[in-house]
C-alpha cells in the first residue's frame, strides 16, 4: 500500500517566557492509504500538536508532513478535521453546516443539496436536516460534524478526541457508526483518543506516544478483522492487545 501521510522528523517547540518547550520531538510516522490509525498517550504528549500540524493549522518548527507526497503548508480540502467540541456553526441548520464546505468550493446549489442529503442520511440525521445545532444531542452534533467533514470529500480525516464528550453508550454507538461509514466511504483516518478500548476497537494500528518531550513511543498493530463487532470486543485477542496498549501508555 502506498503512503498517504508521512510525518518526517516533525518537531514543534513553543516559546515560553523564559525557555522553549518541546511539545513534539522528531516525530516520524507513515500512514498507509485507507488505514485507520488511533493515537493514544498521556495528556500533553503532543497528540493534538501532531494532528494540527497535519491539518495545516499549526506549522512545524522542524521537519515536515507530507500528504500524497506534498508538503503540508496550510489547511487543504483533501484533509478534513473533526474537533472534540464539534465546532458546528450554531446559526446554520444541519444541512447548511454540511453544505458549508461545498459552498466555499463554489459547487452549484442542486449538487450541494444532493451531496449534503447523502451524507446527512449516511450519519442517520435525515429527520434533522433542518434543525439547528442547539436542538441536537451531543452525539447528533458530532455526527453532523462528521457529515460536514465527509461532504467535501477529503481523503484524510483527522479526528481529535471526537467522542471525548459523549457518554459511554453513545460513544460505543458512534464508534460502530464511524466504522460503518469508514467501510463504505474509505478514508485514511488519524484518530486521537484517551480511551484505550476505543483505540484498539477502531484501529489498524495504535500509535502510543510519550510525554516530555512529546514523542512516538510504540506502534501496536491490531490484528483483528473488520467489521468489528461486540464479539471481537469481548474476545481474548482484543483483551490481549488492549492490555499491551494499556501497559505502553501507563507504564512509561
Amino acid at each position, binding site marked *: 500500500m502506498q503512503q498517504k501521510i508521512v510525518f518526517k522528523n516533525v518537531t514543534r517547540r513553543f516559546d515560553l517566557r523564559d525557555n522553549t518547550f518541546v511539545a513534539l520531538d522528531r516525530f516520524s510516522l507513515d500512514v498507509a492509504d485507507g488505514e485507520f490509525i488511533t493515537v493514544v498517550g498521556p495528556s500533553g504528549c503532543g497528540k493534538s500538536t501532531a494532528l494540527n500540524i497535519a*491539518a*495545516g*493549522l499549526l506549522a512545524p518548527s522542524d521537519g515536515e508532513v507530507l500528504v500524497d507526497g506534498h508538503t503540508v503548508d496550510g*489547511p*487543504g*480540502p483533501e*484533509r*478534513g*478535521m473533526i*474537533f472534540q*467540541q464539534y*465546532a*458546528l*456553526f*450554531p*446559526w*446554520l*441548520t444541519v444541512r447548511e453546516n454540511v453544505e*458549508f*464546505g461545498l459552498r*466555499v*468550493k463554489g459547487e452549484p446549489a442542486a449538487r450541494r443539496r444532493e451531496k449534503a442529503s447523502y451524507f446527512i442520511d449516511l450519519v442517520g440525521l435525515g*429527520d*434533522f*436536516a*433542518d*434543525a*439547528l*445545532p*442547539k*436542538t*441536537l*444531542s*451531543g*452525539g*447528533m*452534533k458530532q455526527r453532523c*460534524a462528521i457529515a*460536514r*467533514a465527509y461532504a*467535501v470529500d477529503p481523503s484524510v480525516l483527522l479526528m481529535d478526541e471526537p467522542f471525548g*464528550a459523549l*457518554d459511554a453508550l453513545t460513544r460505543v454507538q458512534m464508534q460502530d457508526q464511524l466504522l460503518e461509514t469508514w467501510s463504505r466511504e474509505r478514508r485514511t483516518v488519524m484518530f486521537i483518543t484517551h480511551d484505550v478500548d476505543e483505540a484498539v476497537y477502531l484501529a489498524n494500528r495504535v500509535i502510543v506516544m510519550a510525554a516530555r518531550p512529546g514523542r512516538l513511543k510504540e506502534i501496536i498493530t491490531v490484528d483483528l478483522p473488520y467489521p468489528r463487532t461486540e464479539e471481537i470486543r469481548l474476545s481474548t485477542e482484543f483483551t490481549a492487545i488492549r492490555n499491551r496498549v494499556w501497559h505502553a501508555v501507563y507504564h512509561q
Partner: protein
Amino acid sequence: MNAPPKTARQPDRVAKARAPDFQGLGLNFVGLVAGIAVWWVLTASGAVGLPPPPDVARKFVDLVANGQLATDIVSSLARVLSGFLIGVILAIPVGFVMGWYKVARSLIEPYLQFFRMIPPLAIIPLAIVTMGIDETPKIFVIFLASFLASVVATYQGVISVDRTMINAARVLGAKDLTIFLRIVIPASTPFILVGVRIGLGSAWATLVAAELIAAQTGLGYRMQQAQLYYDLPTIFVSLIAIGILGLAMDRLLLAIERRLTVWQERA
C-alpha cells in the same frame, strides 16, 4: 458551551415563541393599579406635595389636544434616532476593524477607553461652544453615547469568536474573507445587539439630560420650562412619556435581538 441535552427535541428551525405568561402579566397589572392607588391616596391626603393622578391625566389630555406633547415627542425621538443611527452605523465597522486587526485596536483603544470615562453630558459645554446651539451638539452627544457603547461591544464580539469555529471553517477551505463574512459576523451578532441596546439606553438618557440644558423643544425642555412655573403635572406627563418611550424602544430592540439570535443556546 452548555452540556448537550441527552435527548433531541423535534427539529424546529425557528424556535416557537413561548406562550404568554398570563399569571405574570396579571400580577404586573395588579402591581400597576396598586401603585397608582397608593399615589392617589398619598396625594389626596396631602401627605406629599405632588399632583394626584386626575390632575396628571387632565394635563395629559390638554397636552395631547394642543399638540404640544406630540411635538415634543417627535423632536426628542428625531434627535435620539438620528444620533443613535449614525453612532451604530459607524460603530459596527470600526468595531470589526478593531477586532480583526490588532494594529487598529492598539491605535484606537486608548481613545475609546478615555472617552468612555467621560459622561457624554460633560461634552455638552464643549459641543455648544464649538457647534452652536442648534440640533448639532445634541445629536453629537447622543451619537457619542451610542457609538461608544456599540463599538466596544462589537469588537469584544469579534475577539471572542471561538478559535475552533474559525479553524473548522479553515479546514473546510474557507479563506479570510469568507471567514469574516460567514463566521465572524454571525458569531459576533449577539454581542453587537447587546451593545446596541445598551447604546440606545444611554442615548435616550443623554438626550433628555441634554434637552434640560439646551433646547427649545423636546420632552426635557418641556420639563425644564414646567419647572420655572411650578407646573408639576406637566413634569409628570413628560416623565411618564420618557419612561414609556424608552421602554418601547428597548422592547423593540429586544424583539429584534431575539429574532436574529434564535440559534443561540440559552440557559
